[in-house]
């Protein structure tokens, strides 16, 4: 799959001491989601981080299998006590997460204050993923 001249998806791994960052670019869909799941699983196993960041700034497409993969990574992180962050989600991804009611599963870091590594004394928000409540939403009707 990665041998294609234009890979459908690129997953770049940046591993710090306690933090692993996966930069996802391209399409996260039926054909490619397996690759992301495998990379994330491998990173969690190899580095044992406290925080896993999924950097979605260059993500172009995310279909239902992509959402399923995000849920799979979330399940894996929850089982290991790893905080899962979704960094710089594009608007379309925000919308998908809102409609499917799973936005709260991922900690958000705004694009302008991405922490590189240390999360030692983090106080912002509860540690994922204990909460399954609904985010507040205003009806548009």
């Amino acid at each position, binding site marked *: 799959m990665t041998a294609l001249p234009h890979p459908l998806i690129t997953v770049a791994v940046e591993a710090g001491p306690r933090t692993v960052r996966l930069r996802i670019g391209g399409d996260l869909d039926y054909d490619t989601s397996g690759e992301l799941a495998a990379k994330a699983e491998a990173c969690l196993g190899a580095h044992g981080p406290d925080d896993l960041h999924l950097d979605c700034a260059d993500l172009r497409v995310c279909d239902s299998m992509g959402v399923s993969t995000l849920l799979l990574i979330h399940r894996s992180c929850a089982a290991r006590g790893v905080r899962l962050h979704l960094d710089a989600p594009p608007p379309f991804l925000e919308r998908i997460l809102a409609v499917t009611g799973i936005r709260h599963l991922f900690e958000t870091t705004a694009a302008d204050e991405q922490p590189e590594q240390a999360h030692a004394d983090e106080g912002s928000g509860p540690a994922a993923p204990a909460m399954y409540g*609904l985010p507040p939403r205003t009806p*548009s009707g």
Partner: protein
Amino acid sequence: MAPPKESSTTIIHEQPASGAWVAAPYPVVVADGSGTVVEVNAAAAFLMDGVVPGAGMTDVAPSWLAEAHADAVVGGAVPRSPGEAGVLPSVRGHIGDHSFEAHPSWGRDGQVVWWLVDDTGQRLAEAALSTERERATFLAEASNVLMASLNTERCMLATARLAARYLADAAVVVAPASGRTMPVAHAVAGQEATRALVADDPSLVPGLSEALQGFPPVPSRWIDPVTLPGWMLPEGFTGPIGSVAVTPLPGHGVPAGALILLRSNGRAEFSESEELFARQFAARAGAALSAARLYAEQSDITRTLMRDLLPPDLHRVNGVEFAGGYQPAGAREPVGGDFYDVHPGGTESEPSLVVLGDVCGKGLDAAVLTGKIRNTVQALTPMADDHQKMLRLLNGALLNSHHTRFATLVLASVLRTESQVRLRLTSAGHPAPLVVRNDGRVEEAATHGTLVGALPHVEARSVEVHLQPGETCLLYTDGVTEARGGPLGNELFGEERLARALSGCAGLPGAAVVERIQMLASQWLRDGRHDDMALVAITAPRTTHLSAVNGHTRGRYTA
């Protein structure tokens, strides 16, 4: 005694010639114009009993050689001098088991010298080569014929027909038993093959049950024709059977059946090379048959699954109009990841339950999950008044530790009260339903919840909506809003465009709303690829006032 001059000539001709013949590695026979043998060398005498000088060619030589000699002396132009080359045609024939080429040349006085060259080896090699060519051609043809169809029955018939034509006088193909009967195809050379179902014990035919098991591979077996059961004989095959061979048809890990070759009495038994050839054919036929069988099994499974998974036809239930539309992503897969159902309330005062949803993934995996969800929802209809509880139970039923395949869906409990239709809508991670008012306003139902099947806990918020006569609530899947196309070819249809389109549908019957949205989405897509698209319209029917007094007071309605 010949005159001296004559005799001297004879000596000159004969002596060196005789010596040469004696030493020649080939049998040589010299015969004169009257067909009498004049001279024979030792090799020829050894080869043909009774060929001695003085004997008549017609009496002692093989008939083909005697005839060729007669032709040569009658028709051939006798050369005027020994040096002149008189051209005579060579002939071929058998002496005993051997094949010979006889090359004639003129001797003196109109005698003909026959040189016999044994070409048995060459003949055999030629025959073997032509047989092999014929077989290679046949196998190529057989492969074409067999691979042309993935239909098990046609494949069996073709196998029997080909085998009867090339390998035997008649052939029977027996497929492994399905239930208590075995499908069988019969063929007699030169006739159309026929099929039958046979209820018999294959172990009664020696070697048949082993061949039908397919593994381990067993060699062809020769069996006594007397032991054959009656069903084995094809109709139209007359005369006693000389030899019978049972050859397994090896499949791809699954037994494909057995091939039984029958030869009538007059024909030779199967030689070793014919048996090898039969096995080569059986390997091709077995591969084709097992491919056909696997395909048949798979398409059976798909058909069985699909029968239950196709979206239902919707119609009016308990005074409420329902209309549905479904466009699967692949034209070849009528079942996809979207689904909808209407479960009618038991009485007019009980709400009907509508469910529309979208399962993640595609293909058979998605279809199976779809079936599970539809069944579970149907089983949960007794608690249709509590959507939250339904979703919790459904979520629990779908949760799986192996994967996070999920579904998003909308539940709608629908009840007609007087002329109004009351809806309770709950979205579980699904795009919220849209309501088209009679004045063209389009409202998004304020319901929101978690997708089901992937998380341990789900929550959802329901909303109540009332439809006046003529108003429609549309449930849809994101295949509609995410249809890519438009003037630039890569733009999403989107929620705003859908809402605008719906606004133009105010007051239309539900079926018309569904058709219009489907048409607009298709136009938007043009020929582009799309995801499954499902739509359900719930419409409060326009009512007919029967006894209205002033148009504002309540009358009786029919609907």
